[in-house]
């Protein structure tokens, strides 16, 4: 087991992502953050608070994609997590999906399907704390905290203080 990101580095990565979001979207007027449970939600909230510190507050929501997964039949039914879409809706917005780890890309595909049911955003972008490679679908992230080359068998564990009591990312076999 090795720790690949510590608290200060996680903070710095998220702050940098916040800056990149502002730069790329020329401000935050139409930006909306959607966290994918569980840890994507926490990360979206943190990026949201960096954005309001740097520029202005943006709506932050959560999107549970369980019902849209294509691998549901590979494991026992998962409990559903709350979905909350900000009242402004997604129509015409720049939606930024936030997740902790980008791996196969299947979660993001499911999220894109779910967003398709909810409306027609102007754009959908993806922010992840860790990109560990091994994509199974043609999906890439727009904002990456850190690229970590991994073996497909390794597991990447993101821990956040709001949920796990401390901030760190570890890779283990």
């Amino acid at each position: 087991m090795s720790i690949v990101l510590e608290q200060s580095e996680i903070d710095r990565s998220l702050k940098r992502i916040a800056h990149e979001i502002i730069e790329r979207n020329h401000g935050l007027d139409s930006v909306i953050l959607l966290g994918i449970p569980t840890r994507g939600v926490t990360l979206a909230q943190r990026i949201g608070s960096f954005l309001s510190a740097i520029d202005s507050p943006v709506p932050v929501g959560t999107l549970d994609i369980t019902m849209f997964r294509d691998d549901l039949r590979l494991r026992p039914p998962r409990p559903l997590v709350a979905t909350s879409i900000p009242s402004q809706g997604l129509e015409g917005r720049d939606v930024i999906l936030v997740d902790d780890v980008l791996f196969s890309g299947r979660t993001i595909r499911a999220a894109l399907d779910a967003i398709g049911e909810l409306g027609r955003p102007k754009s959908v972008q993806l922010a992840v704390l860790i990109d560990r490679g091994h994509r199974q679908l043609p999906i890439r992230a727009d904002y990456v905290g850190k690229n970590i080359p991994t073996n497909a068998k390794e597991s990447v564990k993101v821990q956040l203080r709001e949920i796990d009591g401390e901030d760190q990312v570890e890779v283990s076999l």
Partner: protein
Amino acid sequence: MHSPHLLSINDLSKGEILEILDTARELARITDGSMKKLPTLRGRTVVNLFFEDSTRTRLSFEAAAKRLSADVINFSAKGSSVSKGESLKDTAQTLEAMGAELIIIRHSSSGAAQRLAESGWVKSHIVNAGDGMHEHPTQALLDAFTIRNHFPEHDRDFSGLRIGIVGDILHSRVARSNALLLTSLGAKVVFIAPPTLLPVGVENWPVEISYNLDDELSHLDAIMMLRVQSERMSDAFFPTEREYARDFGLGTQRLKALKPEAIIMHPGPMNRGLEISAASADSSQSVILEQVANGVLVRMAVLYLLMGGASVPTEGVLV
């Protein structure tokens, strides 16, 4: 849920009941917006196997399955080969050969769903949608879901709630399932009925018994009026309909005696003027149409939890 079937409330732990109710609530939230249809069960086939008449239960299961993108085959015994003498076993096996993965069964014989699940005739998931005078678990789940929506302070536990079930308890699978489920969640259930409409051995059920509706009205948080099931009545269980309505019907006078926050429930179909007056059924305290809407959500939750995932966890790295 640990069982591949939903046959009886007795098979569910309190945790599993709450899991179903929580799932239904999240589904309500998801489908409340513009996500009317979810792709979760795309390509899976669900069969409504109905040997008994039904409007809302069959339509509710059908709506639930379709909102999850499943294919639905409807079977009703009337006009089918059952009238030529085909057995339950052959009928079920025929449907499974056509690709059914989950069978929703309603039958006039108590235990029909259990027989189908345990006989080894079919591999499908079985959901009991009412078997004789035995159980109707999804009705009880939707009733609990409705009660919970109205008493948010009792979200995880119904302790302190007093729920009256009134009328034809004897013939009612709804009463049995509800008594089991609501007490399992901690509520106090009281059966209010004439002695002739209470089942033998009711004193061993975890419920209170009352023969006087007026004594109870002001103490109830929810009152569930049951349909008088004339089609199952071979004897005279009460002298006349007028007398029944006078003693056990929820009329306008009784409506006033209820607590203002108490809710009025009915599993449907209603005999207006017999067990419930039109004024009560349409009053602001009535949640009868909410029950119907909630039925679809609870049944979606049950379908998802039974057939949405793998029955056994598989190996491999999944993200």
